[in-house]
């Protein structure tokens, strides 16, 4: 991998900022139209509005991907690990993806074990991983209408999460290159959208968390992507964590943890 200079990250940061302004507005106007027109238009038009919304969300996710890939390439990806309930984080991420799935007629089935320990994660980054994996599952679903998302304790005490689709699958010959940058399955390119950064980014983020991202797939039957996360107790023993527990972080940013909202 080449190391880039400050110019590269500034260019990306500036571009991301420029892209985010019209995106902010588009998302805002879409919300206004949904609020005002929801009950009053044809189902077909309502469906188009949902799709518009889903596309705007996707655009935002891609812009974030570009920014984070630039950070990774420049060793500037900063993770701030905090103790989180994996059940809470995973559930809200899946709910946020509901629209993407709904506009394609796909249901997301979420099953989370109830004995999961808390994990040490950077919530924003891990949300990107979940987004990317579910986004891929949606894209590669073909005519399948179900995606299964599951979390359980693995044999070695880690928290393992899997995202399984029952669609196109990936041929064995393509698997080795799956996590490289810009890689896209050229057989399915016509059917499938995307920017080739999602898996590269997800792998980098999971690895930075001390976990592992893997894939199991069969062409024509679907794929399962899985990743492991380290329980918070284990992490505190293993590594020195950023001591900042004062922020409540979410997909939107952070809110200072005033006493009413201490977790």
């Amino acid at each position, binding site marked *: 991998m080449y190391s880039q200079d400050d110019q590269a990250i500034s260019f990306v940061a500036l571009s991301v900022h420029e892209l*985010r*302004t019209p995106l902010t507005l588009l998302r*805002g*106007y879409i919300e206004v139209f949904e609020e005002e027109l929801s009950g009053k238009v044809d189902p077909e038009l309502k469906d188009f509005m949902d799709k518009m919304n889903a596309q705007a969300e996707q655009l935002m996710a891609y812009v974030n991907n570009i920014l984070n890939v630039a950070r990774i390439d420049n060793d500037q990806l900063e993770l701030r690990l905090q103790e989180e309930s994996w059940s809470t984080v995973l559930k809200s991420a899946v709910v946020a993806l509901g629209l993407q799935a709904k506009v394609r007629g796909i249901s997301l089935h979420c099953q989370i074990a109830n004995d999961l320990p808390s994990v040490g994660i950077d919530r924003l980054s891990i949300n990107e991983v979940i987004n990317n994996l579910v986004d891929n599952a949606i894209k590669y679903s073909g005519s399948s209408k179900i995606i299964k998302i599951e979390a359980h304790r693995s044999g070695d005490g880690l928290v393992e999460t899997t995202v399984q689709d029952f669609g196109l699958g990936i041929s064995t010959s393509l698997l080795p290159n799956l996590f490289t940058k810009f890689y896209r399955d050229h057989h399915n390119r016509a059917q499938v959208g995307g920017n080739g950064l999602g898996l590269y980014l997800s792998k980098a983020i999971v690895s930075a968390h001390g976990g592992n991202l893997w894939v199991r797939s069969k062409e024509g039957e679907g794929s399962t992507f899985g990743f492991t996360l380290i329980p918070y107790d284990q992490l505190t023993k293993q590594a020195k964590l950023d001591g*900042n527990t*004062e922020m409540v972080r979410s997909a939107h*940013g952070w809110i*200072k943890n005033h006493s009413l*909202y201490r977790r």
Partner: protein
Amino acid sequence: MDEEPNKATVRSVLCIEDEQFISELYTRALTKAGYQVTVIADGVKALEAAQTNQYDIILLDLMIPNLTGIEILRTLRNPARVPPIRAKIIIITNLEQRQEVRAEIEKQADGYLVKAAMTPSELVSLIEKISLS
């Protein structure tokens, strides 16, 4: 000067933002939710307003004309200021910050929201959360 707010009064927001279309969307959503909104696009004027008038919430964009959001934040949160500004100060931005700047913001602001990551209603909900505490 800094009296306890009368619970029956409408909550006030000072929106310091120079992108007119964005402040228009936010004003619409906040007004619908019952807030009284003042928008000021110029940094110097905004700082003056923040120091002169009482607001419950200050939404502060980082990139505005004549004075940066950081400078405004520093001035409003200057520990030497007595009495302290009672408003909750929430940074709203589409910029990504470097570590040094982020650390300073985290010490002084009550929230940091990425504009593109939220719709106007989501902004209102987040503001409700912050203003309750």
